[in-house]
């Protein structure tokens, strides 16, 4: 929707935030068009549906079955080798970068060795078992986007799975057969068998059924939210790594710690599969070339065939080779597990030696580089992650979070921003697609012109780059990884994994053309594994109901036995329930992850991550350099602070009403219809019921209670107390690697389904409506004192205590127009980050456009919005999230 603005003048009306925009919708600023090749790829993508196939799971399972009794990691490697070797190559016209995850443009596939029940028929025994165990509860309260590439309904010979993926009906009988083969053998099922031995397991099931916790991590998305490391293939090529494995085998065969022998052998087998996969593609390119009538096109295909054949053995010789090889290993990792948030990290710095060399030699131009980077964006955007509806819809909103970072510092502490990264930002504008999303690592040493390029990209409405405080992230890493040897120098290599997870990285010495270049890359496994998304408002609800989930009537926790006659008693009861939740989920998830590392150990990612190859250990055996990556994720923190502030003021200080009266009002949804009844999930547009007047006074007092986001010391003090207690308590729990957990605060999309199951809250929020997005965003419409008051609230605590914080703001396009608008915008961002904030991201959009898009989705196929750590096509978002984005406060003045 990047069409030129008509430059309409504002009228003279004012609201809290300054001038009101004109009554007509203001469109976003225009950007340059992509190349015609990119445009064709984009047009093709827009009409392509998410498609699943069972090639990979078929061959994986077939080989797995044949090798019963083999050493588990070898069995896994042989299964992966077989699966990679049998992927049907697909070559789409005009693509500069070859290879796809599966045999469709937006192809993906189920991985029943992780979990098999969720894609089975809902009425079937296996799905019902999963439902009973609370594993798929989030599915039942999630809304999927109804447009774009989602296959929301079965039609003709295509079946809809998880409300998103299309599967050819002729493949379904075999998928069912494969799924049954994994019943009681998958990570999910094996983990479930043993997690039931954890004391308090029954509470865990109730926590899952009530959607106090969104999902288990061990079998849903066991990897991801981490940064790729492309060093080994770039430095050694695949043959070189195989040679390293051969040496490893010679050194370990017959000696103690024999697991290293099997590890090296497994890596070799897996790489052989990848080599066949690449060579199959090369053959396909040669075949496609025979169809060509135009010589230039034929030459392009033959060049690609030659490149693939070379890269199937050798390290890259050029920028294009390097781009291709990084892409191959990126999707290779994605094919070894169900993964979201596999970030390319600081790819512009990884590729820079190749790009600079080719530019200096005159082999490539900026124009050609830009076209390649656009093509790379299209390839990343085509990535789909096959997962359950609760995961792919309720958490991911269909996104895959391949976060590419620009900026930051180099090994010596100087700005790392480079010209290729400037082109990456430009490609993000000319080819505005959700992937890879971009993050700009702001440091005081970042050049001003580079920052302005970043803000030019943000302000045209792409939602990226997100703005990240480099120093806050480094402080977090130094605090949490120092015991594993983290240094300031190494901390500088960091990048975002997933949407917003600070991830430990390392500098690797890339030798290229007789020079050593220290390139950054991930050196820790998946973050955001552990305790995944605890709903804070829902826990508060159970505090007030003494352990009962009021929606289902089921008891979740034993009575806390606190007499709730003071604010302190409520706070103590909340902490008790929260601790109980973290404890049981940590233990059960540790068991699931233990099952994961035993049944489906990571091979591709382990091969890539330093120092697995050196140690001869996979990432499940702590082969990585850094291993403290398990965390506790929460959702609805600002709603919690607002609710506690209202309780404190209205019930215990001013005694405006009793706790009993408040509970009655909450049960009655303050006299409003529920969000499920109205079909609207934001606070605005709610409908009153007939007993509205009964609760009017209480509701008004709740709404008028101090709200976070206004620089109010009372509610901000509550928020700060929560943050500091949360950061401290996480370290009382340890991962299966015996490392302490730490806090993580991103909502992704969980604020929608988690809000959907939560009653009205004491802050005045109505039942079923969406929680606040992010972690330090204000509740829509309650931040009345302008952006700088919001910044003061947001930075009332030390952001380096947590793996992240997340602030979403919606800015009217008229505010940031032109060069002056960009500068003003940048100054505002800097002011926030300089207060110690970790992150801010922006939707530069007129809310009226979003409302129109909700009514006329077909006219907005390309419209993107920023949700919470990711940009997504509007039409592929569920209505819960759409309503929430529309309702966000729209700033019309930022100066």
């Amino acid at each position, binding site marked *: 929707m990047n069409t030129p603005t008509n430059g309409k003048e504002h009228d003279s009306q004012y609201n809290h935030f300054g001038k009101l925009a004109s009554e007509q919708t203001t469109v976003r600023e225009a950007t340059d068009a992509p190349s015609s090749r990119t445009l064709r790829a984009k047009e093709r993508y827009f009409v392509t549906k998410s498609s699943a196939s069972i090639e990979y799971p078929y061959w994986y399972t077939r080989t797995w079955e044949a090798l019963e009794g083999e050493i588990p990691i070898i069995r896994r490697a042989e299964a992966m080798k077989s699966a990679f070797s049998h992927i049907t190559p697909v070559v789409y*016209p005009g693509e500069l970068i070859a290879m796809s995850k599966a045999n469709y443009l937006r192809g993906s596939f189920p991985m029943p060795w992780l979990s098999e029940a969720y894609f089975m028929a809902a009425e079937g025994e296996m799905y019902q078992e999963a439902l009973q165990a609370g594993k798929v509860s989030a599915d039942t309260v999630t809304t999927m986007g109804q447009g774009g590439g989602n296959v929301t309904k079965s039609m003709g010979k295509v079946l809809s799975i998880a409300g998103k993926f299309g599967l050819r009906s*002729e493949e379904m009988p075999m998928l069912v057969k494969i799924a049954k083969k994994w019943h009681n053998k998958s990570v999910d099922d094996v983990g479930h068998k043993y997690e039931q031995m954890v004391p308090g397991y029954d509470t865990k099931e109730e926590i899952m059924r009530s959607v106090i916790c969104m999902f288990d991590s061990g079998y849903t998305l066991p990897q991801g939210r981490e940064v790729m490391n492309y060093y080994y293939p770039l430095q050694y090529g695949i043959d070189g790594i195989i040679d390293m494995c051969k040496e490893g085998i010679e050194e370990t065969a017959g000696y103690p710690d024999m697991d290293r022998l099997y590890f090296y052998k497994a890596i070799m087998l897996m790489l052989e599969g990848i080599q066949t996969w690449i060579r199959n593609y090369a053959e396909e390119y040669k075949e496609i070339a025979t169809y060509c009538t135009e010589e230039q096109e034929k030459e392009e295909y033959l060049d690609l065939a030659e490149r693939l054949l070379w890269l199937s053995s050798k390290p890259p010789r050029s920028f294009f080779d390097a781009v291709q090889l990084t892409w191959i290993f990126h999707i290779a990792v994605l094919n070894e597990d169900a993964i979201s948030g596999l970030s390319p990290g600081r790819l512009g710095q990884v590729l820079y030696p190749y790009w600079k060399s080719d530019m200096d030699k005159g082999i490539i131009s900026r124009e050609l580089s830009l076209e390649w980077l656009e093509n790379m964006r299209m390839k990343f955007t085509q990535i789909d992650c096959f997962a359950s509806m609760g995961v792919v819809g309720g958490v991911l909103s269909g996104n895959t979070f391949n976060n590419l970072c620009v900026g930051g510092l180099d090994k010596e502490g100087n700005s790392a921003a480079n010209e290729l990264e400037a082109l990456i930002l430009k490609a993000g504008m000319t080819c505005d697609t959700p992937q890879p999303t971009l993050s700009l690592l702001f440091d005081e040493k970042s050049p001003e012109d580079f920052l302005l390029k970043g803000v030019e990209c943000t302000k045209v409405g792409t939602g990226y780059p997100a703005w990240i405080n480099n120093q806050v992230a480094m402080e977090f890493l130094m605090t949490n990884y120092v015991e594993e040897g983290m240094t300031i120098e190494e901390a500088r290599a960091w990048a975002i994994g997933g949407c917003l997870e600070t991830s430990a990285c390392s500098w690797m010495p890339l030798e290229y053309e007789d020079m050593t270049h220290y390139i950054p890359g991930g050196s820790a496994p998946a973050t955001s594994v552990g305790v995944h998304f605890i709903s804070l408002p829902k826990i508060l609800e159970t505090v007030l109901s003494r352990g009962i989930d009021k929606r289902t009537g089921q008891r979740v926790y034993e009575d806390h036995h606190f007499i709730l006659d003071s604010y302190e008693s409520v706070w103590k009861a909340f902490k008790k329930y929260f601790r109980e939740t973290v404890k049981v989920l940590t233990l059960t998830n540790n068991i699931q992850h233990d099952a994961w590392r035993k049944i489906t150990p990571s091979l591709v990612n382990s091969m890539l991550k330093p120092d697995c190859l050196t140690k001869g250990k996979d990432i499940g055996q702590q082969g990585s350099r850094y291993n403290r990556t398990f965390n506790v994720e929460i959702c609805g923190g600002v709603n919690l602070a607002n609710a506690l502030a209202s309780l404190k003021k209205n019930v215990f200080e001013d005694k405006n009403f009793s706790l009993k009266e408040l509970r009655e009002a909450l049960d009655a949804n303050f006299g409003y219809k529920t969000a499920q009844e109205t079909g609207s999930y934001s606070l605005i547009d709610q409908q009153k019921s007939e007993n509205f007047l009964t609760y009017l006074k209480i509701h008004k007092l709740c709404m008028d209670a101090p709200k976070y986001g206004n620089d109010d010391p009372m509610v901000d003090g509550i928020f700060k107390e929560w943050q500091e207690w949360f950061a401290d308590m996480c370290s009382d729990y340890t991962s299966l690697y015996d490392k302490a957990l730490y806090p993580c605060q991103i909502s992704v999309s969980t604020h929608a389904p988690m809000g959907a199951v939560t009653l009205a809250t004491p802050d005045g929020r109505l039942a079923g409506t969406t929680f606040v997005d992010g972690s330090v965003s204000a509740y829509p419409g309650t931040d009345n004192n302008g952006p700088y008051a919001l910044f003061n609230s947001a930075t009332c605590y030390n952001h380096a205590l947590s793996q992240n914080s997340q602030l979403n703001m919606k800015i009217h396009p008229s505010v940031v127009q032109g060069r002056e608008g960009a500068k003003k915008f940048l100054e505002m961002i800097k002011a926030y980050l300089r207060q110690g904030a970790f992150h801010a991201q922006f939707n530069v959009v007129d809310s009226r456009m979003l409302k129109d898009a909700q009514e006329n989705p077909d006219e907005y196929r390309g419209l993107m919005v920023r949700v919470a750590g990711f940009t997504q096509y509007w039409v592929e978002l569920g209505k819960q999230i759409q309503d929430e984005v529309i309702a966000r406060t729209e700033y019309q003045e930022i100066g």
Partner: protein
Amino acid sequence: MDYTHKDCKHFLAVDVFKGICKRDQDNILADDSSCDRFDLLERCKYCKNYKATQEQLGLCMDTVDAYPDMIAKTCNDFQWRSHQA
């Protein structure tokens, strides 16, 4: 037998509904009838090693579960049945 585009070796699948003809790059629907320039794509059901056991399911080499519509282009053991070679 009535063949559809998706049974043709010149069919490039874009998604589960449609694809592109590799010959002329036309957009085509997977389940539409094939054209007169049709060439059969390698699938398990056309392989000597495949034996049907029930609808949409069968065996490969008499031992391993298989299904008829599996694309067998990358299978080293694929052999055309004589009447389809």
